[in-house]
């Protein structure tokens, strides 16, 4: 290929970013220095690549150039103020060949994992973890992140700065992790990626900044695929990726034209994204072969059964019930039981399902979905007045306009039925 176009350069820089910043962080042991070095290298790339063509390995090029620029700057700063931060120059003796060599080794795998992992510092609240990952790993700009989270730019700038200074104070582990530590890091990173996905997934069809937030789901999938390329034999990472792919495959069908939430049973399945489903199913099949189950795999297996059903009434509810039972064992939570109750309602009727969720009321009393599901069961049992009360509570707890709109459709139908009955 000759001269690359700008879209290709842009994508190449985005793709190389986690690996390049991860390696630069290992050299300089300071996030700001690593980010600046990467920025400088990107500017050089934008000048050089359109003229000379792209390098064979963009990440290696960016690491090499970024490292040299940063070392020059550190040297210059050292001349001006004689306070040599010697530890900042650790690992700098190795020559260019060594850089490229290391990129092929296991080291760069640990670089990317470390970069993702420092965003998951347990002291950081979830929203800060996600914002930081989007800024550092994905390279979104602060205004982009601010729009996605529906906050002002200066507030987001502050949030990210605070998160960074917390990390700077914390002990960032730079030695290569042992197997146990690596597994713990992977689990923390997986949880952060799933949080990021849900930020995008929970966004409604229109309004609520949905257009800004939905790309977050795609970014989460991109990060999961990256993680899976690094750890191709980890069944839970396969499960996580499959889960997100299968959930995201329904994106176009989850909201109606007015932006109201559409439940699985009522979705137009022809709108489901088939290539995403194929990828999700392939991954869950691969994961199952390892016979090392985990919560992401079980949830992905449930999503897979929905994806495999051509019509709602072709859904294997018995298998879904069993999978939820497994999930209750692996990760007990009232929300899991609530979801299982939906499968139970299909298998054994709304009465059994209602009996199952009633004990959850004290713990799920502030949860939108609890009242939505309860109302639906009551409606199926013909207990309209109680259903109306449950739906009213659901609306009061709705997190998005889409959720509220969905419940309002139920209420409208109830009202219509009542008027008809009264006539």
């Amino acid at each position: 290929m000759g001269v690359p176009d700008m879209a290709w350069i842009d994508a190449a820089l985005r793709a190389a970013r986690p690996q390049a910043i991860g390696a630069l962080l290992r050299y300089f042991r300071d996030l700001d220095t690593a980010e600046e070095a990467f920025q400088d290298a990107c500017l050089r790339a934008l000048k050089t690549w359109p003229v000379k063509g792209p390098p064979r390995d963009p990440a290696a090029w960016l690491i090499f150039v970024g490292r040299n620029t940063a070392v020059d700057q550190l040297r210059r700063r050292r001349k001006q103020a004689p306070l040599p931060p010697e530890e900042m120059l650790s690992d700098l003796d190795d020559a260019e060949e060594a850089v490229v060599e290391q990129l092929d080794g296991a080291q760069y795998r640990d670089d990317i994992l470390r970069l993702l992992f420092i965003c998951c510092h347990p002291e950081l609240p979830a929203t800060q973890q996600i914002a930081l990952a989007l800024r550092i790993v994905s390279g979104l700009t602060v205004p982009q992140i601010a729009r996605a989270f529906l906050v002002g730019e200066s507030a987001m700038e502050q949030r990210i700065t605070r998160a960074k200074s917390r990390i700077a104070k914390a002990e960032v582990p730079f030695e290569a992790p042992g197997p146990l530590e690596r597994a713990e890091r992977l689990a923390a990173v997986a949880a952060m990626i799933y949080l990021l996905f849900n930020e995008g997934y929970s966004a409604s069809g229109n309004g609520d900044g949905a257009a800004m937030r939905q790309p977050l789901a795609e970014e989460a999938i991109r990060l999961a695929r990256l993680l899976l390329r690094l750890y191709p034999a980890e069944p839970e990472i396969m499960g996580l990726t499959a889960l997100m792919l299968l959930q995201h495959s329904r994106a176009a069908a989850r909201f109606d034209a007015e932006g109201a939430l559409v439940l699985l049973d009522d979705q137009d399945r022809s709108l489901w994204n088939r290539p995403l489903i194929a990828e999700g199913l392939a991954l869950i099949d691969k994961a199952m072969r390892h016979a090392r189950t985990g919560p992401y795999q079980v949830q992905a297996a449930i999503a897979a059964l929905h994806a495999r059903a051509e019509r709602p009434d072709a859904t294997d509810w018995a298998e879904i019930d069993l999978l939820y039972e497994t999930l209750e064992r692996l990760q007990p939570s009232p929300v899991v039981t609530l979801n299982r109750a939906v499968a139970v309602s299909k298998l054994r009727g709304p009465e059994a399902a209602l009996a199952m969720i009633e004990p959850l009321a004290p713990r799920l009393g502030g949860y939108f979905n609890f009242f939505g599901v309860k109302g639906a069961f009551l409606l199926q049992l013909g207990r309209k007045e109680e259903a109306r009360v449950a739906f009213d509570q659901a609306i009061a707890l709705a997190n998005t306009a889409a959720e509220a709109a969905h419940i309002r459709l139920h209420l409208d139908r109830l009202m219509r039925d009542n008027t008809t009955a009264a006539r």
Partner: protein
Amino acid sequence: MLYAILCYHREDVVGAWSKAEDDAVMAKLAMVQEKLARQGRLGPVARLLPTTAATTLRKDSEPPLVIDGPFAETKEQLLGFYVIDCASLDEALETAQDLGRANPGGTYEIRPIGIFRPGTVLGSKTENAAT
């Protein structure tokens, strides 16, 4: 003569395309494919799912070993292929260049086909081989 055009690219780069960029590339490729179809030269076309969805069966051990991931760890990955009827290598190269203009970056391997059987699944499973 039938040629396979094997498409290699860095999948992390292709994966970093936005949906709009991806759609634009696919639309441009579709135009080249339509031209080839009108000329009666277009055989099967496939875009492969990411290598993370791949499984490898190594037959050099007994029983064969099942490994997660693609056959080889390479900088560029096999992401798809075309089968095109071309009179000569020159024509195959010209076709590859047409496709290349629609799809930035990456590498095509142009490989003459020895045995070709069109198979029977095509038709009903066109477009989305998914289900």
